[in-house]
Structures are given as structure tokens and as C-alpha cells.
């Protein structure tokens, strides 16, 4: 037996050096600090009124003070966004899985997915209220309508990206449709699915807040913003915005983390 080739050293993943982590984290942090300082200075210099633009320090202390309530409201918003994404994403993924082999079906749906993506959410919110009532139901529906086309499009492209030779290989094994779908198309679709999810989680959060803003309970971020804005409680509005940002970012990071773990075999994850 001849000896094996040496393993190409590209292989075994080495931990990233700290300097590279730092390079990713430090510049945005510096920008953040600079922006806050500038913000404070501008308010100082131009004597801007509190109800127009509060100081970051004020927002921060109010945020800490109201943290319990903000978390409670954030959780309600998150729950609406999550259930809407689950429903919408589920529908989008299911439609992609059913239609990806049949070109005319996928394209027939694809056009409507494109149309839905172009529809402003604001125009949907009042309609869903008429259909599903003022509480969570209508908000979940709006989030679903906004996220389904995103996941449909991404999943469809992913399922179709399966290597042609690999498909023939499965055929040569006389593998059934389900086998081929599970063993070949799903792994090919995963990177696209995660790209879609990264967009969809943030969209879901935004749409949830907008639809809450249009009515219903005050016990969520959108309702709280509406209420406090009506009373010109600008600082409170800002604390809700900060909470929404934090929730959005953490969702994105959770998805990105799962993505990186699940797809550690993928070329794009092998820096």
C-alpha cells in the first residue's frame, strides 16, 4: 500500500487568536462610546430640551429603573414575534419544500412572495386587526405575512442549490424522494435557511412592534411606545427603543451562533 498524502494543513480548526476577536469587537465599541459622548455634548452645547432629545445618561438610568417592566413588555413582544416567525417561517419553508422540484409551481408562488415582500407592513396591520382582532392574533398574523416570503425565497434557493452530480449519485443509489430530500437537499438548503433567518428574526421583531403600536395591549414594547409617546414621555420611549435593539441584536446573535455551530463543515465557516 502506498502511503497517504499528508493532510492539508487547512484542515484542523485552530482557535482564533485573541487579536482577531478584538479587531471585531473594539472598533464598533469605540464608535458607540464616541457617539454617546457626542450626543451628550450636543445637548449640552445647544441646550436641547429634554422632551425633544434626552441625554443618554438619563435614558440609561431610566432603563435601569424600569428594567423589570421593560423585560416583561419585551418578553410579550418577543413572544408575538416568535410565534409569528414560527408560523410564517413554517409556511414559507413548507411551501419551498413542496414546490422546489416543480419549476412552474415554485415560480407561481415566488411572484407572490416578491409582492408580499414589497407590501409595507403598515398597510397590513389595520387589515389583520379587522380579521383577527386587536390582540395577539392579528400581530402574529402580520409577523407571519412579513416573514413567510423571506423564508420561502431563501429556502427555495437553498434546496435548489444541491450539486447536480450529488443528485445523480443519489439516483444511482435508487434513493427515494424523502431520502434524497433529507440527505442531500436539506444540508444544501441550511446555509440559505440561516441567512434567511438572520433577516427574518430582526424583521419579525420590527413588525411585531409596529403592529403593537397600532392598538391593543400596552403590556408590550409597541404599546408602551404608543402610550408614552402620546404623553410626551420621551425618555420612556427611548428606553423601549433600547430594549427593542437589545432583543433584536441578541436574537440575531443566537441565530448566527447556531448557524456557525451547525454549519461548521461549510466552506464559509472555515476562515
Amino acid at each position, binding site marked *: 500500500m502506498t502511503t497517504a498524502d499528508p493532510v492539508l494543513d487547512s484542515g484542523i480548526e485552530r482557535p482564533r487568536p485573541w487579536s482577531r476577536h478584538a479587531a471585531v469587537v473594539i472598533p464598533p465599541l469605540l464608535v458607540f462610546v464616541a457617539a454617546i459622548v457626542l450626543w451628550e455634548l450636543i445637548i449640552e452645547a445647544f441646550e436641547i430640551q429634554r422632551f425633544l432629545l434626552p441625554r443618554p445618561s438619563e435614558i440609561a438610568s431610566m432603563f435601569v429603573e424600569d428594567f423589570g417592566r421593560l423585560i416583561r413588555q419585551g418578553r410579550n413582544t418577543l413572544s408575538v414575534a416568535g410565534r409569528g416567525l414560527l408560523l410564517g417561517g413554517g409556511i414559507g419553508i413548507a411551501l419551498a419544500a413542496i414546490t422546489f422540484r416543480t419549476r412552474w409551481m415554485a415560480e407561481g408562488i415566488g411572484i407572490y412572495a416578491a409582492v408580499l415582500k414589497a407590501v409595507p407592513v403598515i398597510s397590513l396591520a389595520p387589515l389583520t386587526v379587522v380579521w383577527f382582532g386587536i390582540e395577539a392574533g392579528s400581530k402574529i398574523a402580520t409577523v407571519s405575512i412579513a416573514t413567510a416570503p423571506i423564508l420561502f425565497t431563501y429556502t427555495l434557493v437553498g434546496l435548489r442549490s444541491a450539486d447536480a452530480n450529488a443528485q445523480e*449519485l443519489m*439516483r444511482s443509489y435508487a434513493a427515494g424522494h424523502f431520502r434524497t430530500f433529507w440527505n442531500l437537499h436539506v444540508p444544501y438548503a441550511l446555509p440559505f435557511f440561516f441567512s434567511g433567518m438572520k433577516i427574518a428574526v430582526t424583521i419579525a421583531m420590527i413588525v411585531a412592534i409596529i403592529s403593537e403600536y397600532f392598538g391593543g395591549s400596552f403590556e408590550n414594547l409597541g404599546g408602551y411606545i404608543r402610550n408614552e409617546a402620546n404623553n410626551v414621555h420621551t425618555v420612556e420611549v427611548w428606553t423601549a427603543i433600547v430594549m427593542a435593539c437589545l432583543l433584536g441584536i441578541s436574537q440575531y446573535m443566537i441565530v448566527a451562533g447556531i448557524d456557525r455551530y451547525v454549519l461548521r463543515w461549510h466552506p464559509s465557516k472555515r476562515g
Partner: protein
Amino acid sequence: MTTPESSAEVVSLGTNTAISFDAVRKEFGSGVNATLAIESVDLEIREREFVSLIGPSGCGKSTLLRLAADLIEPSGGTVVVNGKSPRQARLDRDYGFIFQAPTLFDWRTVWKNVALPLEIMKISGMSREKKDEEIERLLGMVGLDGFERHHPYQLSGGMQQRVSLARALVFQPSILLMDEPFGALDEITRDRMNLELHRIWAETNTTILFVTHSIPEAVLLSGRVVVMTARPGRVQEIIPIDLPYPRTTEVEESTRYYELVTQVRESLGQAMAGGL
């Protein structure tokens, strides 16, 4: 390099026909856009035989292979594989197909890539231990012990193609259909892979139909070399290769080897001239 125990055994072919093409014709597209890829191809490959298909690009050698594999269907004539229709042979998992690209699944380890056909086929009467043993044996045979847990991207091109070879052998198909399997490899790796493939062929009871661009490769490996004409592809000439077994580096340096290479080259020259 281990040598086969008996070189006489190597050349004894089976009595049955493994693959036959009878007046086979294949047209791609339809109407005015139709192109005739191959026409009136008659060819018989016996069990245990190693046959190479060689010809100018676009001569339809891959088309022949894909017809035998039931990846495409003939426009005319009949293809018979192990006495059955290609479709039935495919459903019976009679052949293993090896592409020019290794076509490994990036998300599976080397071990799991080789195990894939067994997972799909659910071969009855093969216990888990038996399967594991077989995978281990094959990985040893292609020189990849110790790489079981690696992912494809951690391997060189030659190693990836060896995984693909092990994967094709794991369910013990009686026929291997190989579509320029080493075409993308550098010459040194290619030479070594050729000798390994030849050894594997000698050690197993496999019939091999091998598509290649390389004249020396075809001569070194085969019992017969089928030279095809330019499009539409026809069989120009079938050249028997009477080199001794086992085919080793010494065989590659013999005068007879050079004569045969020349003979194939001249035949190929005529085939190309005919097509112009």
C-alpha cells in the same frame, strides 16, 4: 504496493456479459436544436473485464456511461446491464458510479460518506458490525486509515477521490462506471491512483467501464480500449491490450506498452480526422 496473489487469475474473465450496447443512439434536445451525441454503438463488456472508453471531447463517452447507469435514456437501441434493463440494474444497485469530481458530502465525515450507500440501501443480512468492518477494510484499502473522522475539506483532491472510490465499493456492486475519475488530479497522484485502482480491480470481482482522456492511462489499466469517433460518437476501433498482469511500473516501461500507446494514438487520430 502489494501484488495480486496470482496474476493468472486476474485475466480470467467471466463468461457472462456485464454490459451490452446494441445499436444505441442518443440525441439531446429535440427539433432543430437536437444534437446527436452517439449513433449505432455496439459494444459488449464481459464480466470482470476492464474496458476504457477514449475519444475526442464531445464524442459521447460519458453519454455511454450515463446510459448504462440509467441517468439518461437512449433515443434508440438497447442497453442491457447484467441481463436487465439499466433501470432495473440501478434499482438492484448493480453498479457504482464515480464522477470526475469526488462528489462527497461536505457535512459528513470520511467514515459517514463511505457509509452513505449502506444507510440508503438498508442491505439486509448485513449487521452493524459487518458494515463497520467493511467500511474500515475499504478505508484501509484506499489508504485512508486514520482519516475516518476528517471532513472532506481537510483532504487533498486525491484523497477525496479515494473516499469516493471506497464509497462506490462499499455496497459491493458488480460493476464500476467511472467517468474520468482521476482527470482533475495531478500526474503523480493520478499514476498512483491508477495503480491502486488496478490492484483493487484485481482483488475484487468487479467489471469496470472507465472513461478517460488519457491514452497512457487507458493502455495501462485496460483489457480492451474502445476508441470512439468525434460527434456523433461511434466505435472507431476496439484495441485489445495484451500486456502482462499485474500492471506495474515495469509494464509501463516495456516496449509493448509504447507500441500499444502508439496504436491507440493513431486510431484516435483517425477517429478525429473522420469526425472533421
